[in-house]
């Protein structure tokens, strides 16, 4: 872990994390479902009768909640300034990978880790490692962005 610690925002990170944990608990308490964003979304392609409406509601709620919260707090939102092809390629890999691996940062990273699921405990270090390696290559070997 080289370099300097910069722009560390421990309190907003912790508050936000607690909100995410509560949101995931709320979904388990009411509908008995794991709050895995990738799984909730992909199971809509194609939608199955009787199992689609709650997924659609969750997927609409997510940007809605982020939008309302950002209005309230006035966060300045920025984009990555990455070229569109890079974003599209990234999206393709994220979509394929999370579908094959059965989860993402939420389903494996939060719910799975908290439940001590063996698959999730393996999944998290794997995606953390390849993500950190990718950023290291882009930024420190090729000197590119973002």
């Amino acid at each position, binding site marked *: 872990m080289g*370099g300097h*610690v*910069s722009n560390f925002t*421990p309190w*907003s*990170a912790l508050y*936000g*994390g*607690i*909100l*995410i944990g509560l*949101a*995931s608990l*709320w*979904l*388990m*308490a*009411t*509908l008995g479902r*794991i709050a895995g*964003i990738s799984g909730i*979304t*992909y199971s809509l*392609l194609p939608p199955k009768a009787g199992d689609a*409406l*709650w997924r659609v509601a969750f*997927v609409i*709620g*997510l*940007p809605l909640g*982020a939008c309302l919260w*950002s209005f309230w*707090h006035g*966060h300045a*939102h920025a*984009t*990555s300034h*990455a070229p569109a092809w890079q974003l599209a390629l*990234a*999206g*393709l*890999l*994220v*979509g*394929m*990978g999370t*579908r*094959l691996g059965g989860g*993402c*940062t939420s389903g494996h990273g939060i719910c799975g880790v*908290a*439940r001590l699921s063996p*698959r999730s405990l*393996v999944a998290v270090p794997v*995606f953390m490692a390849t*993500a950190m390696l*990718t950023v*290291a290559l*882009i930024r420190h070997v090729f000197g590119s962005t*973002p």
Partner: protein
Amino acid sequence: MKRILAALSAGALFGAGLDESNMADPRKVLAFLDVFGQWDPSLLWVMVGAVTVYAIGYRLLIRRDRPWLAHTFNLPTASRIDVRLLGGMALFGIGWGLSGYCPGPALAGLGLSNPDVFALVPSMLFGGWIADYWSKAPSLPVKTIAAEAK
């Protein structure tokens, strides 16, 4: 109707948490992943907050017979550590590092008028569709290691 409102509010609270923690900002995520640069550990604190709350609440919740608005708790039971899991997660990590977006922040970005996600989300959905198509192909080699052996 109650079920829809429950899911909508859960999604909204999740989105609010992503925005509060700045995890919908790809620069913040990439700063966490950049361990050889100006490392920003914020994402770790998001995970700590969320996992702690969920770990405690989950154990209390599943003592109940059933959720409030459904008949059963839907809990994943798979425990196989196989090539699909490892390969999938490796691919996901590369995409995450390439952009700073995982699925939650990508969808949240649709509500934050962030132009990035208009390129990223459609191809993410397409990627999920391709993976489904592959998974149905009978030739996919799946080697499994018993989770207990790990």
